[in-house]
């Protein structure tokens, strides 16, 4: 028997209309791995995440998630997804709690009812992102960063096997980012989560990720961050003339100290 990978993509190619945006992607992610996907704007990072979850059909290649078709994995609630979308309807009449509860309802079979366990999962998820106090505020009235935290809590509340995070640090302040990365590490260690996230901040994530995948239509590098010759890599993926801001989490000015 072969070892079961958390995620396995074989020769996957994806297009929108006639634009091929991902070409011949081979990628495996093991259980309990934290993988960061980096690449310039429009390089296909978000598309890759959607393809893994079966939200976007590839025109070639195969995808397996714990040996299952992505659609089946979705039904079982394997993916906790934080999308990049940020244009939420600001008057949508839900509380932060209701937003997180959506994940629990999504997995109901027929009747939608929150058990005591469901409620405690929702409360724990809110607490993990420090949003317990604002649980009964209207979602639309929260700040951008607070909304992002609630949406992260919603992804956690599904109790997924795989967390798929599209630019999760967007809107989080530096201190929150640190504790967020710490939370990810903790989730991986305690709940055996596999985590894939898109990030533009290579410096910050390199401390917690096991592997980096640099993509720009194709996968240009997939391996341990320490093995990646960073400058050469960045030049190859982003082009020589693009200046990548490297963020140092130990920088006092960034922390507002």
């Amino acid at each position, binding site marked *: 028997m072969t070892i079961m990978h958390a995620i396995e993509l074989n020769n996957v190619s994806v297009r929108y209309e006639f634009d091929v945006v991902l070409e011949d992607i081979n990628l495996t992610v093991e259980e309990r791995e934290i993988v960061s996907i980096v690449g310039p704007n429009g390089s296909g990072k978000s598309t890759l995440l959607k393809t893994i*979850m079966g939200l976007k059909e590839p025109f070639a290649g195969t995808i397996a998630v714990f040996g299952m078709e992505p659609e089946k994995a979705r039904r079982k609630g394997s993916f906790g*997804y934080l999308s990049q979308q940020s244009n*939420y309807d600001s008057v949508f*009449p*839900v509380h932060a709690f209701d937003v997180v509860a*959506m994940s629990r309802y*999504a997995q109901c079979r027929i*009747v*939608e009812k929150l058990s005591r366990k469901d409620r405690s999962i929702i409360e724990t998820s809110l607490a993990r992102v420090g949003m317990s106090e604002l649980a009964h505020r209207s979602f639309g009235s929260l700040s951008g960063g607070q909304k992002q935290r609630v949406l992260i809590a919603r992804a956690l509340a599904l109790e997924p096997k795989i967390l798929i995070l599209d630019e999760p640090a967007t809107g989080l302040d530096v201190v929150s980012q640190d504790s967020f990365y710490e939370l990810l590490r903790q989730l991986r260690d305690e709940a055996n989560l596999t985590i894939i996230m898109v990030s533009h901040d290579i410096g910050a994530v390199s401390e917690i990720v096991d592997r980096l995948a640099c993509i720009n239509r194709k996968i240009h590098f997939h391996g341990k961050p320490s093995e990646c010759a960073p400058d050469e890599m960045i030049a190859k993926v982003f082009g020589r003339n693009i200046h990548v801001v490297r963020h140092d989490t130990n920088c006092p000015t960034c922390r507002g100290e």
Partner: protein
Amino acid sequence: MSELFAMDFFRNAFFASILLGALFGILSFFVVTRKMAFLGAGIAHTAFGGVALGVFFGVNPFWTALIFCVISAIAITKLTRLGKLTPDAGIGIFFAFSMALGALLIKLKKAYTFDLQGYLFGNILAVTSCDLLITGAVLLFFLPFIALFIHRILFMTFDVEVAMSSGVRTEYLDTALFAFLAAIIVISMKIVGIILVSALVVLPASFGLVLTKNFRGVIAWGIIFTLCTMCGGLVLSFFMDTPPGATMVVLGTAAYGISLIVNALK
């Protein structure tokens, strides 16, 4: 008052108001939060083509309108999901096409004189027991559908991609919701007319949204609002000797306007 209820036609009209009040109070929430107000009005107009088809082929126009509208509603959403068309453009095209088709067919079938007044404002005082039965039956299916799936529909409305990735069967829910939308609109068109239908898909939830920021409250207020405007408008129209449908629209819009003003003064 009691002599009003002694009359069959008034009693039927009153029951119809209650049934439609419950239907639109709930439906409106999804139409407004999904920003489909235009689809609601679009379907009501599309029904015209469906009615004309029935007249042309000599079958009961109610059923042709129902089928035609359900198919159009689903077709429009499928097309917009595929990204080929923006929703308002899609609805605009369907809407114009079926109105024109209807006009064409009715002209071709020369013998038929079309009751425009009835089409615009319906005739709630001519509601038959059969109409009530059909409306009641739809409500009987719609209520359990909403009760079972409301949170998943809410999730899908809020962000469809994450709902899908979390395991919600969005394609089925979407189709079911649109089928209900079309069915409710076609049924109520005959009773209250196209103008009131267009008002009923947007006013209840808009009113609820002025009063509260939570979906449970918005739906509850929407139902209360619709019941009050429809039953109130009916009684009022009787005493003022005005057309019931038009009275309801004016009353509902006035109530919404007052809620806005009161809210602004708070």
